[in-house]
């Protein structure tokens, strides 16, 4: 048995040595059986990625290309296996997305390529790979990260979807608004159903929970922004699509409620310092639809104002909202057919899509900007809870 002789950290070279026959045990304990919610919650963010990279470094130092290839292949396949098994769990998917990106960043940061070394300390530069160029494996890892990202989007979509119509459209949070219902329309949901219904707060809490999990896993801030933008797009698209299909959602008071809800979502972005994520911009069609419910819809001037205001809505969407618009009381009139015609004529030259509904399944392309770490590899210690006693610091 190896004897652990305490050494000073400066003696370590930031590598981890393991026997070739221990590779299955390494990926089993570090990837396949690691529980993001149990052991991993106390780890430094990205620790599995750093450990795997330090193992790659040692195999590179030995100039053992087979060992490097084998470890990288096992790592990639094990991550895929975990995601197949627990791919509907947000924490698992977020955890492995964060670690795959960190592993990819390490392979760049220590590649020896000048472009990736700008922020390295001189000690970090000493830790660059010596024998192998792993650019092709970086490409595979980047492809894997894209797959995991798409899976993350599917998971959060499944969780958010049932909340959106209820929280963004049906539930009323503005006091006194429930009294101004469109005339002649009954509420769709019974009061019993309402009690269990999701509110805007449920959505905000869910967004907060996604955000805190991603932060806990050390996900790259630029990647978190892309996830948040995608979440906001889903909320905006599903809300708008339902508004376009439901007459009871097209009233002045619903417009008010939606604008309030959007302001709360914007407040959430400000609170999380995510104003520059592009998330708010994805709500623009919904914001304009809500404004359309509230503006005057009578004169030629009103038509002109609507046409210049609603540039994020298609003609089909504008016309549909106007058709569905339902007065809240007897003093208000429906939108006249001639007014809708005026709008249609004015918008005739617009070359927009004839589609009525937004593509709620649209996924924005993801990028993984290089994010080097200041962590010194030689200081990394492996917690005994990981069950990796068979690897040793070098």
């Amino acid at each position, binding site marked *: 048995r190896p004897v652990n002789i305490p050494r000073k950290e400066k003696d370590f070279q930031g590598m981890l040595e393991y026997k070739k026959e221990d590779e299955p045990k390494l990926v089993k304990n570090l990837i396949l059986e690691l529980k993001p919610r149990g052991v991993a919650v106390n780890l430094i963010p990205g620790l599995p990625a750093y450990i795997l990279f330090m193992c790659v470094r040692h195999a590179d130092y030995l100039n053992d*290309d087979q060992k490097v*290839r084998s470890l990288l292949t096992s790592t990639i396949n094990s991550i895929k296996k975990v995601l197949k098994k627990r791919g509907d769990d947000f924490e698992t998917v977020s955890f492995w997305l964060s670690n795959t990106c960190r592993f990819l960043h390490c392979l760049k940061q220590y590649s*020896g390529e000048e472009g990736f070394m700008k922020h390295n300390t001189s000690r970090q530069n000493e830790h660059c790979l*010596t024998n192998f160029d792993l650019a092709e494996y970086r490409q595979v890892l980047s492809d894997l990260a894209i797959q995991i990202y798409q899976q993350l989007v599917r998971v959060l979509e499944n969780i958010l979807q049932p909340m959106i119509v209820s929280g963004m459209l049906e539930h009323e949070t503005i006091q006194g608004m429930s009294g101004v219902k469109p005339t002649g329309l009954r509420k769709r949901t019974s009061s019993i159903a309402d009690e269990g219904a999701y509110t805007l707060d449920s959505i905000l809490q869910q967004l907060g929970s996604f955000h805190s999990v991603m932060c806990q896993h050390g996900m790259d801030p630029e990647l978190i922004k892309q996830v948040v933008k995608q979440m906001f797009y889903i909320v905006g698209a599903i809300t708008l699509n339902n508004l376009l299909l439901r007459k009871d959602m097209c009233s002045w008071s619903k417009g008010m409620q939606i604008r309030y809800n959007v302001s709360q979502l914007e407040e959430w972005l400000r609170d999380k310092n995510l104003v520059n994520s592009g998330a708010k911009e994805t709500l623009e069609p919904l914001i304009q639809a809500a404004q359309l419910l509230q503006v005057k819809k009578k004169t030629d001037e009103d038509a002109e104002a609507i046409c210049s205001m609603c540039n994020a809505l298609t003609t089909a969407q504008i016309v549909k909202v106007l058709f569905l618009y339902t007065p809240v009381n007897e003093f208000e009139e429906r939108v006249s057919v001639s007014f809708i015609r005026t709008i249609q004529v004015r918008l005739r030259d617009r070359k927009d899509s004839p589609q009525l509904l937004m593509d709620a399944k649209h996924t924005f392309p993801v990028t993984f900007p290089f994010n080097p770490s200041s962590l010194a590899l030689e200081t990394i210690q492996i917690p005994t809870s990981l069950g990796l006693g068979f690897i040793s610091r070098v």
Partner: protein
Amino acid sequence: STQRPRPRVLLKAPTLAEMEEMTTSEEEESP
């Protein structure tokens, strides 16, 4: 300078899909 020369040997990698095929066939072969 502490900078090392750029690594020289490019390790060819299979694509993600090829990697999966490799594992699937290995798994099928094993009892």
